């Protein structure tokens, strides 16, 4: 079975489980591909997405044209057919944080479009020179592209980027609100991106850029020995040029020097002069198991991670949640940490205020991200939900069930601890859970201060309101009662309550009584 064939038969795994989810999965794959392409060349992303309804094929499933264009790197013309027309295993021997859920780019989407409509995909791309346009299909059984048409065009305007247009079956109406959530949440974590979406009804949705700053690109790093598995170890062995195991360990893994390599190989019972190519399968298993328990490696290198950063995340949240100066927002980016040999960073944000209560139902709204991808489904199964609803005692932070609250959590890692193949929620790895908890708690401590301040201010306001309500009445009726002409001036008293002049307190200590006659 070819990889294409495998995905053809198991498309649910990639999220194409029903017509509405298929639309969502397709947008997600294509959009994230585009974002990666833009960031790779440090271009501020400008992405245009359009979904057009073609015809209804069967009840609940229509045919749509999906078109996405970006201003990313573009693809070298000779690579276009393979990039989009072949499901292949990359030969990655280094690690860095990446968006792509499955590392398949848009191929799975193209595959899905093809099997539901039997229409070709059109890919137009340029790296700055000529523009190449391919119309093609995928030969599923043989896992290779079938080029139907290839056109080369002049590129006078020096356009750079990629346009993908394909047809697919789906059900837009049932995924509409989730898709809009997804785009909004994507705009939050990519505040430097400019997104435009035109829906099948022709409605335009704009997610405008809020900043021109982009976070630094993650660096590629060698794998950490704690996190290696047998298969990856075997692949490293098969490609290595090193002649001894000691050199092999030092070359292919991070943080291993002479001494650590010697100690480790000794612990594994493998000679440091042994040839990597002559390792037996059981030797590899031994090495991997020993590596997992060996405690003298350095901590995993977090430079392969790309957190959004407090400043950018704040920009994104402010613009997409329309926060004003009155609203509260606190963003926290934690220091790098590790679980099972994988580095990870947790970022969290907490927002409250009247702007929040206008757009969300009362109570807590959770926005989750893994490696900058919004997670929209199965919220209550994941570790973030658990932390927010079980680990954190919100009343400590003066948050109650009716407090309008948005909690944003982003976990970035070279390996997100997804719980299932659906990749919609994270497992409760203790280290990850602890970091999420700490991040939210840190943000919530500022929240508590904000809430008590606003409660005090509101209380002061209510106090003043009460005086403003009753003092005029007292003035009015005491005037009538005493047959006076003009109302006494209550302004000094109102000023006193708003500033609490101490000498007013002094004055009231003097005592007088009303003496009724002794009739």
């Amino acid at each position, binding site marked *: 079975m070819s990889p294409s064939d495998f995905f053809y038969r198991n498309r649910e795994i990639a999220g194409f489980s029903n017509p509405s989810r298929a639309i969502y999965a397709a947008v997600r794959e294509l959009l994230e591909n585009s974002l990666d392409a833009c960031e790779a060349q440090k271009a501020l992303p400008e992405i245009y997405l359009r979904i057009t309804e073609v015809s209804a094929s069967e009840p609940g499933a229509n045919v749509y044209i999906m078109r996405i264009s970006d201003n990313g790197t573009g693809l070298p013309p000779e690579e276009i057919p393979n990039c989009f027309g072949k499901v292949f295993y990359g030969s990655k021997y280094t690690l860095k944080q990446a968006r792509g859920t499955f590392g398949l780019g848009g191929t799975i989407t193209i595959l899905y479009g093809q099997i539901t409509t039997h229409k070709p995909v059109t890919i137009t791309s340029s790296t700055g020179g000529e523009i190449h346009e391919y119309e093609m299909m995928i030969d599923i059984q043989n896992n290779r592209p079938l080029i139907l048409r290839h056109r080369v065009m002049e590129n006078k305007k020096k356009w750079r980027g990629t346009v993908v247009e394909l047809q697919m079956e789906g059900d837009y109406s049932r995924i509409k609100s989730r898709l809009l959530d997804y785009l909004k949440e994507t705009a939050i974590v990519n505040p430097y991106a400019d997104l435009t979406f035109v829906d099948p009804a022709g409605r335009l949705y704009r997610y405008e850029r809020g900043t021109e700053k982009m976070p630094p690109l993650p660096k590629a790093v060698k794998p950490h020995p704690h996190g290696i598995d047998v298969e990856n170890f075997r692949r490293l062995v098969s490609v290595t040029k090193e002649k001894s195991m000691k050199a092999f360990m030092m070359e292919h893994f991070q943080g291993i020097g002479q001494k650590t390599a010697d100690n480790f190989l000794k612990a594994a019972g493998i000679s440091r002069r042994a040839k990597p190519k002559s390792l037996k399968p059981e030797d590899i298993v031994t090495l991997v198991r020993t590596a997992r328990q060996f405690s003298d490696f350095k901590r995993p290198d977090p430079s392969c991670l790309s957190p959004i950063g407090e400043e950018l995340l704040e920009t994104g949240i402010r613009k997409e949640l329309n926060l004003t100066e009155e609203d509260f927002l606190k963003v926290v980016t934690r220091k790098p940490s590790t679980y099972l040999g994988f580095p990870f960073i947790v970022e969290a944000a907490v927002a409250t205020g009247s702007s929040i209560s206008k757009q969300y139902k009362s109570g807590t709204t959770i926005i989750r991200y893994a490696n900058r991808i919004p997670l929209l489904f199965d919220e209550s199964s994941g570790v973030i939900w658990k932390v927010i609803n079980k680990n954190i005692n919100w009343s400590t932070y003066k948050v109650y069930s009716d407090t309008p609250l948005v909690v944003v959590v982003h976990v970035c890692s070279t390996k997100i601890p997804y719980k299932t193949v659906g990749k919609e929620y994270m497992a409760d790895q203790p280290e990850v859970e602890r970091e999420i908890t700490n991040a939210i708690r840190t943000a919530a401590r500022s929240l508590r201060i904000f809430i008590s301040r606003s409660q005090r201010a509101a209380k002061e306001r209510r106090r003043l309101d009460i005086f403003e309500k009753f003092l005029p*009445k007292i003035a009015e*009726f005491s005037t009538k009662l005493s047959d*006076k002409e003009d109302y006494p001036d209550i302004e000094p008293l109102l000023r006193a309550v708003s500033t609490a002049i101490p000498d007013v307190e002094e004055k009231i200590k003097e005592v007088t009584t009303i003496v009724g006659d002794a009739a």
Partner: protein
Amino acid sequence: MSETPHKDADKRREITEASLKQLGNLIYEQIQNREFPWIMMQSRSTDNIIYDPELRQYILGSRTTRRHARNIRHIRPFTQMVWTAWFARELVSMRKTSTLREVYYSARGQQDIEFSGQPESDNIIIDLEVALNRPREDFGIFPEERSAIFGDLTIEYTVPGYEGRRMNLTDHPDGVMVGPAVTSSEFVETSADKVLVIEKGAMFNRLIEEKAHERFNAILVHTAGQSPRSTRKIIRRLNQQWGLPIYIFTDGDPWGIHIAMVIISGSANAAHLRDLATPEAKWIGVWGTDIIDYKLPTENLTEHDSKRLRELKTDPRYTGEIWQREIDIFMKIGKKAELEAFSRYGLTYIVDEYLPAKLESV
């Protein structure tokens, strides 16, 4: 009492109006002086309500409290009190009367002053009584009346339009309702030599029918349960003005006992007021002893009744011998009897036998 009663009433009205105006002046000037207005008054909290054995009634102690517009919890009742004072002054100067219920409704439509219920407005009125040391009747504010009076008593009205007019209280065979007009009238003359106070309307009517006022030479007063202040005041006046002895006749249960006691010694609620109690008045039945002596039909005391009896037993107003004795008897027999219980011996038995015997014994 002077020869021209309505002149006295006029004077009293003037003084009331002046003290209301004085309250307005005080508050007005406090505001002018850039001070949050406030007034001192005697505290009405339970620990400041003391039983005075000499006066034989509850009085307010020496502790005072300040109702202060600077205090966020006081400003609303303070405002309501100023409004109520203004309302009272309007009543007094226009020589009108009103009821507690009407005061509550009159505040409706006064934005922000509105009372949340009649208990709140009643309470503010009591505050005003305490602050100015005057009963609400002086402000022209009366309770809903249900009590009545009957007998050979000539009164002279002081209410507008009736000044100087006289009336004999036997003129109306249902008895005369004790309203503002009767309350503010002057008592001119009577041939009666005693007052019979009855808790229940049915028994009051029976006594009128059986001409008890003539047979016992008595003025009859119907309290309709716990007697309103105006009725207590009338009872006191009859006692004070002509020295008429007062005999109180209630159901034979703790609630009836207490109706009698409030007439005699006043209530804790009205501890700020004088001239309401009649310490000389006597409770003549129905006693626990009567239940035994007359073999009256009875009902068993409920748990609620017994609890009330135990409370009365330790109440400072009930230290007198007869009270302690009768409370003990009620508790011992565990029974109670209503006034109507005498009907088992025929409708006139109470007038023919019981009352004469009772009145003779005291």
